[in-house]
């Protein structure tokens, strides 16, 4: 009886993984396909990987993506962390209003955010890479706030006050007592802002200027005449990087646990 149960549960698990990873597997296989077509197997090749670095189009988009993502997520983390600290020490009613306001961009449909930001930006500045960075900061800040706030709430007020009593200046007390406690929250907020910015298509599409392309907006314009296979290669590399990063992080955690034991 239990054997059957176990069998079915493994089968179910297998199905889930199949649906999750089959598309990525297809992509990886296609990145080695020596033919531009998606349906014909033309033999094994590494040429798309070789071509990748010499393709200005893709390299340009990759550079823009990295620039925009890093700038916007770092700035959003700084802004979001300070905002979270501010909100934490506000009066209850004010904090509730601020939190409500923070929730709005999260719940808002991307397309609404995108169009409204575009309308706002065109009033003051020509659209370009800079406007995209501003837009990305705008939608990333709430993620940082919501990652940092719980950390602050679990922080004991007494520690900070004790440090002050013992002669620390407020900023010294902050870096020695508060910062180490909230750091994991800041980090996860930063990583979330990073992924959100990397992922975004809709808002970028509306707020970007002519000639500015991130990976996602470049892909979109290629749909009509078929996607360049170099992009399969790039996606494969990106997937593997994320995968390795995940493995390393889990491995480190396990090592630390062992050490504690």
């Amino acid at each position: 009886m239990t054997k059957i149960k176990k069998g079915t549960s493994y089968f179910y698990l297998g199905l889930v993984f199949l649906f999750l990873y089959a598309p990525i597997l297809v992509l990886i296989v296609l990145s080695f396909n020596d033919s531009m077509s998606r349906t014909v197997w033309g033999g094994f090749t590494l040429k798309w990987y070789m071509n990748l670095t010499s393709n200005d189009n893709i390299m340009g988009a990759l550079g823009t993506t990295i620039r925009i993502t890093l700038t916007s997520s770092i700035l959003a983390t700084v802004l979001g962390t300070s905002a979270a600290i501010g909100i934490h020490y506000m009066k209850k009613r004010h904090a509730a209003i601020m939190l409500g306001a923070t929730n709005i961009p999260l719940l808002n449909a991307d397309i609404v955010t995108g169009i409204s930001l575009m309308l706002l930006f065109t009033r003051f500045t020509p659209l370009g890479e800079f406007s995209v960075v501003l837009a990305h900061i705008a939608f990333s800040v709430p993620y940082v706030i919501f990652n940092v706030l719980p950390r602050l709430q679990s922080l004991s007020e007494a520690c900070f006050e004790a440090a002050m009593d013992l002669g620390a200046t407020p900023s010294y007390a902050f870096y020695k007592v508060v910062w180490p406690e909230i750091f994991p929250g800041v980090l996860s907020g930063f990583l979330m802002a990073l992924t959100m910015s990397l992922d975004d298509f809709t808002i970028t599409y509306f707020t970007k200027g002519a000639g500015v392309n991130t990976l996602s907006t470049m892909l979109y314009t290629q749909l009509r005449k078929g996607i360049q296979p170099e992009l399969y290669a790039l996606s494969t590399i990106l997937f593997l990087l994320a995968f390795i990063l995940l493995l390393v992080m889990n491995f480190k955690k396990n090592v630390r646990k062992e050490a504690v034991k």
Partner: protein
Amino acid sequence: MKNRFISLLSIFVLCATPVLSFTGCGSDAEATDTLVVLNYGKYIEADVLKRFQKETGIKVKYEEYESVEDMYAKYKAGSINYDVICTSDYMIETMRQEGELIPIDYNSLPNYANIDQDIIDASAAFDPTHKYTVPYFYGTVGILYNTKMVDEDTVSSWDCLWNPEYKNRTVMINSQRDAFMVAQKKLGYDINTTDKKELDDTFNLLCDEKKYVYAYLQDETYECMISEDAAMAVCYSGEAAMGMEYNEDLDYIVPNEGGNLWIDSWFVPRTCKHYDAAMKWIDFMCEEEAATENFEYVWYATPNTKVAQHEDEETLADETVFPTKETLSRCKLYEAYDKDTLDYTTTLWKKLKAY
């Protein structure tokens, strides 16, 4: 209180500085040598774009779009001032009627002489006084078929799409105007008819065809034909040429009744801020070397008569890429529908897809 005011002020200044300095730089650069170009995705050879910037010293902001409707939305959003745009015939006509086009100064285009007079004449369908456009690429709508499954005689008439023998082995084009064209050609009607009864007949004939259709596709058509999932497909010549590159058994034909000729052209919209640079761009696109490079990348028929000198005989003999004069004489351009007809045909198309 004072303290708070100062800190608020400093934050404001800090935030404002990059914005101000940025707009400053932006508009300076904009005033001199930049050009904002809007074109279909993957519709230019990257080297041509690079060479233009090097030779003229003009910095190009090159923007791409996916479909004609996409282009129109982008343009209408008004967030970017485009200087020069390339798009398809019927959309140019719509925009011309809206008064969005600025006349081109043909005297400043020495390379314009390279453009085939026949294609310029055909452009009259969307640019009757020939003031606004310069052709970039063109092509036809016809049938891509697998020579192992269908013989040429069968596909030389649009009737083959109603042949029960090929039930569930034909791919129909997933575009309202092109699908209507096919049925109208079979019925012997004009492809620009606005007569309600004729449109109803067209609709009924297409409903009748639906039982033989394997799928309605547009972009994936050539994939479907390469993998031999279907015996024949209604598609654009560019699509067909791509398919024939991968499967030697495929061939393309424009049936005897004729079909549609489409032309993608450059034009200057009202938002243009750099007219002289736009003229240089259009002229560069007509240049012999640039046109050859573009042709070898895009692989659609080029209206540039000088390109032929650079191609080998096999390419020139390829009627898919270079339609013969005889084929072109059988083909006609679409004229933009008036609002009523557009609504009516859209309803019919939706009914057909739901039928």
